[in-house]
């Protein structure tokens, strides 16, 4: 891949990183427009596969998708440029905020604003719970898992790390057990 194209790749992702406010999912339509519609770097199907893969991988979805697109277009240097481009705007902006934080965080009007912002953040986190629960069609018998998770994390300060490892092992063993039972039934 030639140099001007690598520069375009970096600038595209820089633009994506700069103009997506409100987290990773807000980035998806913008990445789609830039990568599929405008630059025609990959076709629709490859891109959809990338989203699915990015969702099943840990980490920020925007970074995951940048890795996927960058690698698809230009291998290792593609990954480096796409990831750097997508995180650099937020890195710079947060640095500026952190740098000046002590100057304005104690101002009364800012503190009052944060008194309003905090409950709003709770609402913004709580709403997706309902949307995800509806979308993922979880059977009500499965609700014990989120409930136990909340109690363990909030009241017993158990790290989510252990819950994730446990759930992965539990799902895997249950899967092995169920396949074995099905095979046993089909034999008899």
């Amino acid at each position: 891949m030639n140099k001007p194209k690598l520069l375009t790749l970096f600038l595209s992702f820089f633009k994506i990183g700069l103009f997506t406010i409100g987290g990773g999912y807000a980035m998806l339509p913008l990445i789609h427009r830039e990568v599929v519609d405008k630059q025609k770097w990959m076709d629709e199907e490859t891109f959809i596969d990338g989203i699915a893969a990015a969702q099943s991988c840990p980490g920020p979805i925007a970074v995951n998708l940048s890795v996927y697109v960058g690698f698809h277009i230009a291998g290792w240097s593609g990954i480096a440029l796409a990831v750097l481009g997508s995180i650099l705007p937020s890195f710079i902006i947060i640095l500026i905020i952190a740098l000046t934080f002590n100057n304005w965080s104690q101002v009364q009007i800012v503190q009052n604003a944060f008194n309003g912002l905090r409950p709003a953040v709770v609402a913004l986190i709580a709403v997706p719970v309902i949307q995800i629960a509806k979308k993922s069609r979880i059977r009500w018998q499965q609700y014990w898992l989120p409930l136990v998770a909340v109690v363990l994390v909030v009241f017993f300060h158990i790290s989510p790390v252990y819950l994730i490892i446990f759930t992965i092992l539990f799902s895997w063993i249950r899967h092995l057990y169920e396949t074995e039972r099905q095979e046993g039934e089909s034999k008899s």
Partner: protein
Amino acid sequence: MIWQMFITFFKIGLFSIGGGYPMLSMIYQEIVIQHRWLSHQEVTDMIAISQMTPGPIAINVATFIGYRQAGFWGAFFTTLGVILPSIILMLLIALFYVRLRSKPWFYAIMQGLRPLVIGLIVAAAWFTAKSAFVNVFGVVVFLACFVLSLKFKANPIVILLFSALAGIIAG
């Protein structure tokens, strides 16, 4: 110090499944409860800031905490730590995804994690509520924002601007 922060954010990146919100419960657990680098309230404020600035929450929080604790290089290494697992794992998944997704065990694990993701988001909301529901005003703003977001699909930025304004007016 920087090394410990790098490892902590590497862990957060590695175990952040299902996007930004479930990851917040990890951030509270590691940053507030375990290492006491920030208080509940400071993390909640940080989430509000990162909702109003570009980029994924994880990156924003990592950069902010890194800088507060250890200046520029702190910010550099926490940010690197949080994205490194993504880069490594995503590369593997990108290479093998077409083969992985047809494997029943892969599907079973992904299905199994879904309810857990919901639990982790509820835990994150709980941690935030600790610093938000300090008076009646907080509960009222929460209910208003909740309805605006769920029923009227209001833009998060609009919700945050209005709630900040409500906070200023209420004094």
